[in-house]
């Protein structure tokens, strides 16, 4: 065993426990929303939680320093996978992001999230000045840009968005001058307008316009937002009760066990359920973000921070999306939504945080 008992004791069991608790709560809601469907999603999710737990502890076994220094090879590998999935990928729900590896289907873009954390940690650890300089911006933009473009080409806007979140978080930590922020904003505007004109597919544009006018398209992407809002709003204070949500039980709510699982909670457990769950997430995120202070070096700080950002960003986008404040981009709720790849990558990200935290003493 590479990991000794003293280190094992240093694992943040509170954080690991919170993550597991949220995941198991997720299983309950997946059961409620999918028990009428032919496939047994509950068992599958339980199985994936098991796999992910193994992934989490494996991730703690190797010193993150090792992972960070070799991240460049992982980076090359993952880009190859992303490019490969563009060519050979199976099309699932309009995306090519699924790569069939024998029995298991695997989403390289999910793994890419973790790899990006390691690569950026390695890059940013070298930046010791208090602010980002124009030269130090270029390299991470190129490094992040390659997989970002590959993911956008899938086309998987949701994952691309979390990439931006992770990278942006990294930049904030390195230090942003007002001038730099303005340049970024201008750039975002240009990219945004250009992307709208030339880059976005029609269905993606529709999702954005639908956000503003959901009633214009009650059959298409507006349908999801409307049904989700109806589900959440009709939950009221205490909800309709477990497995009693008419929106989810009568199947009005699409993707209710995956991206829209939080709507089921809102409908069946009301605002109280929403409140408790959001509080749980906030607790978990606090535990994650505040682990930054426990890192022994700059690379560790970045690993913890960007892993936390990854989860926080997905969480934010998801709870905004399902209530109609953000376009439907296909971002799952971390730990709660059904889906193996997402579960595994988030557990592994959490494993990275634990890894950094348990090795906080430089002389170990």
């Amino acid at each position, binding site marked *: 065993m590479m990991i000794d008992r003293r280190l094992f004791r240093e694992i943040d069991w509170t954080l690991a426990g919170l993550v597991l608790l949220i995941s198991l709560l997720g299983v309950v809601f997946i059961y409620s929303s999918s028990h009428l469907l032919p496939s047994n999603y509950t068992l599958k999710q339980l199985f994936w939680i098991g796999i992910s737990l193994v992934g989490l502890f494996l991730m703690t076994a190797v010193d993150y320093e090792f992972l960070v220094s070799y991240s460049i090879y992982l980076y090359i590998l993952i880009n190859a996978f992303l490019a490969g999935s563009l060519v050979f990928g199976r099309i699932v729900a309009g995306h090519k992001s699924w790569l069939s590896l024998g029995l298991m289907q695997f989403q390289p873009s999910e793994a890419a999230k973790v790899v990006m954390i390691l690569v950026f940690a390695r890059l940013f650890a070298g930046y010791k000045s208090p602010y980002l300089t124009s030269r130090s911006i270029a390299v991470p933009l190129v490094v992040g840009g390659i997989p970002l473009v590959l993911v956008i080409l899938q086309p998987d806007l949701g994952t691309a968005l979390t990439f931006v979140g992770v990278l942006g978080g990294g930049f904030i930590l390195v230090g942003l001058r007002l001038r730099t922020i303005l340049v970024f904003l201008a750039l975002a505007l240009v990219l945004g307008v250009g992307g709208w004109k030339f880059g976005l597919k029609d269905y993606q544009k529709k999702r954005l316009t639908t956000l503003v006018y959901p009633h214009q398209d009650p059959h298409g992407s507006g349908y999801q937002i409307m049904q989700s809002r109806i589900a*959440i*709003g*009709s939950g009221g204070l205490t909800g309709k009760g477990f497995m009693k949500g008419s929106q989810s039980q009568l*199947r009005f709510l699409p993707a209710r066990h995956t991206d829209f699982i939080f709507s089921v909670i809102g409908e069946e457990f009301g605002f109280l359920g929403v409140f408790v769950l959001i509080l749980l997430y*906030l607790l978990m995120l606090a535990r994650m973000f505040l682990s*930054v*202070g426990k890192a022994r070096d700059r690379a560790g700080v970045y690993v913890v921070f960007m892993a936390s950002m990854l989860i926080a960003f997905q969480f934010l986008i998801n709870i905004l999306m399902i*209530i109609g404040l953000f376009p439907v981009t296909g971002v799952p709720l971390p730990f709660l939504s059904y889906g193996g790849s997402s579960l595994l990558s988030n557990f592994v990200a959490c494993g990275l945080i634990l890894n950094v935290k348990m090795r906080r003493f430089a002389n170990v």
Partner: protein
Amino acid sequence: MPADKIYEDLSIVVRRATAVFHVLAVIVFLILAYYWKVQILDFKKFWTLAEANRTRTLILTAPRGLILDRNGVILADNKASFKVSLVREHLKSLRPKFPAISGVLGISEEELRDRIERYKSLPPYEPVIIKDGLEPEDIAPIEARRHEYPELEVAAEPKRSYPFKTLAAHVLGYLQERTQEEIRDNPARNLNVGDMGGGAGIERQYDEELTGRDGSVLEIVDSLGRGQEQISEQEATQGKDIRLTIDARLQKKAEDLLDGKEGVIVAFDPSTGEILALASDPTFDPNRFISRFSPEEWVHFINDPSSPLENRAVRGLYAPGSIFKLIMALGGLDAGYVTEQTTVFCSGAIMIYGTPRSCWFPAGHGSMNLPNAIKNSCNIYFYTLGRQMGIEPIDAAAAKLGLGELTGIDLPGEKEGLIPSPEWKQKTMKESWFPGETISVSIGQGQLQVTPLQIALMTAIIANRGVHPEPHLLLQTSAQAGRGRPDSSEAHAAEGVPPFKTSTFEAVIEGMWRSVNDHGTGQEARVEGMDVCGKTGSTQIVSKERAEMLAKAGKPIKTHSWFSGFAPRNSPRLVVTVLVEYGGGGGAVAAPLAGELFSLYRSLQGK
């Protein structure tokens, strides 16, 4: 700093990371506040939406009220039929199934697509009817494959049926699918998408009475529109029955008489205004319109140059021809231009305002008094009278007899015709009136336009010696059945002062009697022992120049033939007006048809 060797100073980045988390926490609480708004403040709104989502109202179509003739013969009935609707939730995944669905139902894919496109704006839980008028045996193959097509919904509905097919088609009218505008604009009537409503005739006129109240079944459905359980049911109530004044036997006779011709027969009781028969030919079978899907039928009927859908009795505009001489006689006598004994010599032709005018009888009628001028329909007499009167008194007399205005019959779309006047001509043509036009009007030509029903009403006013009946088709509705006659026609008829002196009427009626019973132009309408009084008319429908050209070419000039009369002479019970388009002479073509109807009426009364 030796410590720096082991631990670098990370305080700035840690501070920044902590700050980022704090910002994040604030954002999360803002989002939570929004959830509060949606779940607590807007709870009612979303709860209602969720309820509307999960429940669906199935409409139980109410049968329309029956339409009966005056003796209780059912003219419009209901029979059971089936309709198939498509539930459109998840329409996208449904599109690939269209070819299969159109195959099962025997409708074209194009039609199916059009149909769904038409109802695009309806909420997705409202099913769209895609096929109707199915018999139970047509339903069996669809029901057998129900599991393959969960989005198809089969429901029974009452279907209108007209057992006598074309009989009284123009009176009854036909049904049409209600438009979305009609449904939207009449919220109080509780109409539903896909309902059939009156499109013409009585079906349209009394649509509100005939339409029942649709029932409904409230049921819980899933997002595919599959019923889960019923919550409540409200039965449909049938519309009110309507009993018409029509006598099916007279109606049938009138239609048989017109068979193969284009024209109109109206028969009604002048004492009550009750219409006993109203036939317009060519006709149509309203059963062919009952389906919501008969575009070809429509196009066929609408493009037919003989306009079979038009009810010529109230919408056909014709020159009255010699029948107008009755009005000339009444107006002339009453205002004292002539007396009953005033004679005019007919030599067969006359020069008026420098234009030669001829009588239809080239040899000339000789010396004519007023009754004989009516009996022989002498043109010269009425040219002379017209020149004496001038246009205003003529128009006034026509207006007193109901021309130029709606008769007020309870049928939609009636036309009012036209009494030409100098003012009218100045307004529409920007030309002044020529005296010669008055001469044309005197024998019912020129710009005069009347409907056959107006002529029938005019005849009835003469028959009644001035009492103006209100022609109508509604005898009673089932709601009024227990309360006696609501529509007391006698009361209507009694109001108002007679437009002319009784002696005036008697003089004109004497002429009408002679026309039929004393070898006049209407003698073909004579019925032994019935004292029929009437007047013929043959309307020149082509210009004089054109007529001369046709005559030169040896081609026959066919005129519209008219006959309008009543019987018996005293206390009249029946007015019959006949118009046959391009029939030829009124005496030869129209009068015998009227005679047959009078004689059938007589034999029916005798029974």
